[in-house]
């Protein structure tokens, strides 16, 4: 969709931070669909997941309303299904750490974030070079099952800090 991707917010992490937020006070509600790009995300503690929560009125929503359903692609072993309901966050990156080249990259599309009468949905395409030295990735999505408007997303590590990476939020121009 050339010509339709408009950058709204970007956070470039070059030293350890506990979390990264896209949107919040920088949220632009004039779009129906948003794209989130994660590039070269690294963490400070070995074998930890990268998590996500939505922002409601610029604060992370910690309620147990996150559902996920994905196929996990693995270059070294059998694929698996990843699904659950009523979690307090959703999984994005997979067991990354301080090993050389360990990182998460991903593209997500966000839907209905400005609609107070609908759930917030997202597609997820993610790939991680894990601490264990193999390639795993997610193909699927997640939903936050509360009818409410949201104004962004927050990322944080299961344990430790985000060490580096580029987090970018785009709007898809109508």
């Amino acid at each position, binding site marked *: *969709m*050339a*010509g*339709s*991707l*408009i*950058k709204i917010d970007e956070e470039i992490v070059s030293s350890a931070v506990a979390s990264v937020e896209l949107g919040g006070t920088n949220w632009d509600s004039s779009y129906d669909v948003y794209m989130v*790009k994660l*590039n*070269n995300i690294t963490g400070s503690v070995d074998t930890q997941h990268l998590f996500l929560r939505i922002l409601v009125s610029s604060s992370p929503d910690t309620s147990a309303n996150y559902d996920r359903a994905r*196929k996990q*692609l*693995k*270059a*070294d*072993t*059998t*694929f698996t299904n990843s699904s659950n309901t009523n979690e307090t966050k959703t999984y994005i990156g997979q067991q990354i750490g301080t090993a050389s*080249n360990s*990182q998460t*990259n991903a*593209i997500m599309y966000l839907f209905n974030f400005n609609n107070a009468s609908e759930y917030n949905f997202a597609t997820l*395409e993610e*790939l991680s*070079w894990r601490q264990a030295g*193999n*390639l*795993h*990735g997610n*193909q699927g999505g997640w939903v936050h099952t509360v009818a409410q408007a949201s104004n962004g997303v927050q990322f944080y590590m299961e344990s430790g800090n985000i060490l580096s990476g*580029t987090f970018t939020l*785009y709007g898809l*121009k109508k």
Partner: protein
Amino acid sequence: MATNLQFIKSAESLSTVSSISVTDCFNANYDVYEVHINKIDITNTDWIQWTYLDSGGSPITSALYDEAVLEMLSYASFVESRSTGRTEHLRGMRGTSGISDLGGLKITIFNPYSSSSYTFSKVQSSGFVNGGGLFGAKGIYVLKQSATHTGIKVTATGANMDNVTVKVYGVK
């Protein structure tokens, strides 16, 4: 308002070729790229595969390519394919030339120009296999080489191709 999906370069061949390359399409201006192929004619039922070009423009053929691909077929069971230590990324798009041709291939590439990171990518594709039906693929890939890669070379597994256009965009 300026767009952040920016066309960089394309390569096209309307005559029969064994490969097609887009040279010098990766640079320091972008970390993430999209490669689009919306049509290829090939002579057999084949995979469309790719390798990266090094800083001198030569294809990297070392056994450093890993991939995991979910093959989604309209006419048979889905297939989970995976392999490590390949000399190319094999499973991009699969199909047969004919009235249906090969439908479309989108590769999103992360960090190809970075000398300090592996090159990662993901694929969504759709093709059509004669005598079968729709052949979709979603995959993840890594070239386990921390080096500067400047371009991409696209080939078919065991066949020539024509009427092919490869377009490269940067995601700024």
